[in-house]
């Protein structure tokens, strides 16, 4: 999804400081301090995790840290709510399978 650059009510969107991070090993860019989930969505990533039993995809749902559908592995820590966790340079983000990363799930 795109960023909104100009808005009829809010005006010009603040331009953030661009930082690099990775998602499943892929180098991506986002704005420092924005929710990890926002940076992922801008990069077209919708699936944040797969459920443990039925392996169903899940993504952002409430965007305010309440539903926990968007949790991922961030810097090795599972179950991080990406919708309310600010993006930092060099973050290592991984799709979560159940409660672990892919390699361990197999």
């Amino acid at each position, binding site marked *: *999804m*795109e960023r*909104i650059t*100009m808005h009829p009510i809010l005006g010009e969107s603040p331009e953030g400081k661009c930082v690099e991070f990775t998602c499943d090993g892929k180098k991506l860019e986002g704005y420092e301090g924005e929710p990890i989930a926002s940076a992922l969505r801008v990069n077209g990533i*919708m699936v944040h995790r797969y459920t443990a039993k039925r392996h169903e995809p899940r993504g952002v749902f409430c*965007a*305010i840290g309440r539903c926990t559908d968007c949790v991922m592995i961030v810097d090795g820590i599972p179950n991080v709510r990406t919708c309310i966790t600010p993006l930092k340079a060099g973050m290592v983000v991984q799709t979560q399978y159940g409660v672990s990363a892919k390699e361990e799930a197999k």
Partner: protein
Amino acid sequence: MKIEHKELIVIGAGPAGLSAAIEAASRGIQVTVYDENARPGGQLFKQIHKFFGSKEHHAKIRGFKIGDELLKEAHEKGVEVVLNATVMGMFAQKEITVMINDEVHHVKGDAILVATGASENMVNFRGWTLPGVIGAGAAQTMMNLHHIKPGERVLMLGTGNVGLVVSFQLLQAGCEVVALVDAAKNIGGYGVHAAKLARTGIPFYLSHTIKEAEGDDHVTGVTIAEVDDHFQFIEGTEKHFDVDTICVAVGLSPMAQLLKMDGVGMKDTRGGYVPDCDETGATSIPGIFAAGDVTGIEEASSAMIEGRMSGYAIAEYLGYMTKEEKDAKEEELDQSLDALRQGMFAPKNRGKEITKTEEDILISTNLLKHGFVADDEISRFPGFVHKAAIHPVIECTQNIPCNPCQSACHKGCISIGENMTSLPISVKESTCINCGMCVASCPGQAIFLVEEHEDEDYGLITMPYEFLPLPEVGDLGHALGRSGKALCEAEITQVRAPKSYDHTALVTMKVPYHYIDLARFYKKGDE
């Protein structure tokens, strides 16, 4: 564990919590507000539309600006706001546990106000867990706080005020809204909110709901179908839309878990499971108060008044105010709150079928079913008049508590009277000076300025416009009707957007005389 002590603990830094904190702190009480979010203000900073009500309810001011004002005032009064602070438990003797930076603190207050607000309801349909199905609140958070589009093509489920307002905000963010869908028979929110969507051409499907969200890894489409009186799908009525996002706005539920945990008396109501409290939010346990949506779903304007009432009641409870003082304040606020709880959508009218306005005019059924007043219905409302010279045409046809248009006009062209739910009257005898303030101040964007040139076979229609890009003088395009259907060619003759209009631009288009009663929106280019 060491127990910290606070004079007043407020849980939740939204409109109710902050309003209470401000009033309590003004009386000299030391107030600490805990909020689990990284920013204070609750949902106010996502509300980019102009609020309804009257001046005392911050009418015609956009929600996020009200949020700024509240925060500034709280800061000035010395209210301590602790963010990223999740209150985990509430216990006897007015004690709470709160997690701040992965550390649990044990805090005891002389009084506690719970202003935790509400959470979104959901409905289940096949595929509802797919990425791309989001809550309406999520859409607002993404576009209005984080400046990203929630999706490119969106279907909205729910036509209450949240569904209507968020749909409009999606358009403002540059998204396409393909349809609004609701299982109910009638549109649940204000007609004026629906009308400003309908005239852009968005269809409403009432008595419809989602059958299935389609897609393997994320939403790629959606199928809706009509439902019967028992909410069962009617076979053969399916309709498909290619969308990447489905937005769900099907109501809110009070988040009263902390109060229940504390042992406060609760009650089950139509509005959810809420604390049994009086007008000031005093619960069954002395010293424990509740305000805002946690006591029953309303909106931010009433939450702010409830918060202030609780602030006074707490001041009295803690000995900072006499009972007489408190009672006087309470009475004043009670009137203000009561004014907001009137009209067609008042809590007392929920579930009732209303067929006539307070003025005994048949309401527009087309507005309830399709989102716009039909062309043959509009002339029965008092805001609709004919006159050669420029004059306001006010397409506000439901009794809602709102009157900024009346105070915006200093020439007496608009009359609502004492009762703020009365339908606005366009006063034919008054002289409109084309200042445009009524158009810009109407939170429902329901006012148009019309100039009729019958002899020369044209008319000028000035409409509110809150999208980008703004049309420019000389632009040629089409005038759209209330349903969003292209009617005739139109030329833009004036575009005004001074600061006083607060981001509601006024766009004037020239149309053939025949269309002056029908043309209500503009679209550039052919089609």
